[in-house]
């Protein structure tokens, strides 16, 4: 490494250091002040307020907002066991129970494995219903947005 290169290197380092110093002295006034911690102003020894509780929307027809949307669940599901042992959703929504319980039947696409082979039981890839099908609460959107449902094509 030549003399010149070493000098450039030292200069760069000094400049970087200077910038850092400048940054710390200017930043707190503007940009840093806008950054909020996850504590959101609550001291560590204080308890922050509990979030609002929202009720599940029940006994209402919930329409899809777009064609591919997994249908929403118009009832509470938190008490239903869905694990490796049992899936309680299927006790009403799987054939032949759906007729007896007057519940919508699980879509036929859910009885196909990833190769498209037809199965007699719900495919394991579709086992965890609540990954796609969820109940709705009466909560307002967290962030205002312009989302609008698709209009029917007629």
């Amino acid at each position, binding site marked *: 490494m030549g003399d010149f290169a070493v000098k450039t290197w030292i200069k760069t380092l000094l400049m970087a250091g200077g910038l850092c110093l400048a940054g710390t002295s200017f930043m707190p006034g503007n940009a840093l002040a806008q950054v909020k911690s996850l504590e959101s102003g609550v001291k560590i020894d204080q308890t922050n307020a509990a979030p609002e509780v929202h009720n599940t929307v*029940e*006994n209402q027809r919930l329409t899809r907002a777009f064609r591919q949307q997994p249908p929403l669940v118009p*009832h509470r599901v938190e*008490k239903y066991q869905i*694990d490796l*042992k*049992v899936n*309680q959703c299927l006790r009403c929504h799987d054939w032949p129970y759906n007729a007896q319980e007057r519940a919508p039947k699980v879509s036929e696409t859910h009885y196909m494995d990833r190769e498209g082979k037809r199965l007699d039981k719900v495919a394991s890839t579709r086992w965890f219903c609540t990954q796609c099908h969820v109940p709705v609460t009466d909560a307002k959107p967290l962030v205002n947005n312009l989302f609008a449902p698709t209009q029917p094509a007629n």
Partner: protein
Amino acid sequence: MSTENQESPWRRIWKALKLPSTRYALGTVLVAGAIFGVMGWGAFNWALELTNTESFCITCHEMEENTYSEYTTTVHNTNKSGVRATCPDCHVPKEWVYKVRRKIQASNELFHHFLGTVGTPEKFEAKRLVLATHVWQTMKETDSRECRNCHHFDSMDISRQNERARSRHLDAVQDKKTCIDCHKGVAHQLPKGTFEAEAELNKSMSGAK
């Protein structure tokens, strides 16, 4: 020494018991008998009720680790009104005759506790379907007697239930269904193979009647 003195003390007590009292008045014997009888009865029931508490049930680790820890997450433990139904409320009959019968049956559970039949979570899991089916069968046989200590069709205001519950409960009354027919796994996790076992149980029990 005479032959009488060589008799064993047990034999002498037995002999005395067979003879009428020569020392105490009949009245004393009767009053003392009544007092000791009441005390004995009280002590018996006190001990019986002591075994009828949640804290007694979970002195066995099988209960605490499996069934109780699952129960704590359910509506019979925490709910909006704060009324709890603990282990004996559902699993021990309230009526005396049935209660004592259930307590005698429980000695079998004690026996299996010492054998370690369900001594680990794995062993419990392997046995879960059998154990659960026993409870379902009993509840079907007794028309869910223990549920109905609190939940009566007659006292149910179905107009305050949501639409789903209302239509099901109306059907259930008409079809003479019992609580456990639908409400399985309300306080504990359901075992693997629940729906198959349920169908089998319904079939075998409808055939028996």
